[in-house]
């Protein structure tokens, strides 16, 4: 068994923007999730739409397997999901 050695603290930070803002989502085919990667909570509908139109967690988990991270927990804001990861 080899020692894992010292842990590298400095992070790699990747930001991928698919539109310049929440209100300028590009035109996309009707069959796709026009609400974007994550559901935009519609305030007038309350909780009704929350969780319906988003990329499922297991799809992100599969991407994170490639990166070598695991999800520890998730916090959901109205417009943002925050995943706390291992490593």
């Amino acid at each position, binding site marked *: 068994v080899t020692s894992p050695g*010292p842990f*590298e*603290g*400095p*992070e*790699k*930070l*990747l*930001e*991928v*923007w*698919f539109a*310049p*803002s*929440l*209100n*300028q*989502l*590009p035109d*996309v085919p009707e*069959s*796709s*999730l*026009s*609400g*974007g*990667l*994550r*559901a*935009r909570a*519609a*305030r007038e*509908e309350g909780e*009704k*739409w929350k969780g319906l*139109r988003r*990329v499922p967690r297991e*799809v*992100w988990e*599969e*991407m*994170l397997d*490639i*990166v*070598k*991270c695991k999800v*520890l*927990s998730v*916090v959901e*804001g*109205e*417009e*943002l*999901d*925050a*995943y*706390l*990861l*291992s*490593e």
Partner: protein
Amino acid sequence: SSLFVAPHLLILKTCGTTLNLLGLYRIIEIARAYCGYTNVWRCFYSRKSFFFPERQHGPHRDWRDEVDFLDKVFGTAGAAYTVGPMNRDHWLLYLTSPNTQPRLPYDSKLPSSLIAAPPSSSPPAAILPTKYQDTTLEILMSYMDPKARAPFFHTEEQTSSTPGHELGQIISSKLGIDELFPKDETTLDSFGFDPCGYSANAVIGTGMPEASHVEGKPGGGYFTIHVTPEEGWSYASFECNVPLPITSSSTKPPAVEGRPTLQKLIRNVVGIFQPCRLSITLFVSTTASGSGDSASSVLGASETEARAWQSFGTDLLGGDFVRKDRIGYEFDGYDLVFACFEKKG
């Protein structure tokens, strides 16, 4: 490490020997398969110089390899920069020009098991302003004071009896991390690792800077903290995109619902982690003129950038620190202010 997902963007921040960039292909595939996004509006990749570059894998072994990897995806739309002193704490940045069609080095298809049926109806769209200012603050801190490192170590007894999230909560409360922003608008998720280390994500308000304007409130955002407290290579990072007032020598900023000013937030964070060396970066979008109600977006982008430049003055962190560098960059659509500080002695 952390992942943030909003309707139009994704932020992946990972430490250790993770293969962050290898996730980019899949992110593009997912966005295409689920949302019909064929273009990437902007892509940013950045990191501080590694303590142990020889331990990295894949494209992360060298900055040149990382740039080559990104160039293969974005072609001539990407540009790479080194900011700060090359033989000390330099910072590396890659960014793309707007609206690029990414290329993947293989036939791009998600496994069928990952494709879900699309929903049958759409939610009504909320009315949001089209103009707002995107600002991101990052504070990268190294060589923490032993007193500041101590709370991030846990005994075997602690870790065997206390779950990581509970440990995280204890640390957050003890150090005042849960009070960096008003508690009533903050959802904090933190974790204490065994035997040491700490991570936290926080969602402020709705979670996006532009989202609350419709209700006449300042926009929200996130902050994230990661700490590796081991002696010799101790490191803490803080990142935040919450709109904040920025003071200048001649004007007083308007108060925003109990939120700190940019300078006060920086001082509070540095006070918690007590680093010997740190770099601060502030990205400000310049494509949108200010609108809405948040204090920073009331200002034009250039004024915000000018105030940021002034605010990263030699006196930002008081008499204990000396500023080594202050560098300004004007990119296409964004301005960057970078500053390095070192503790005296």
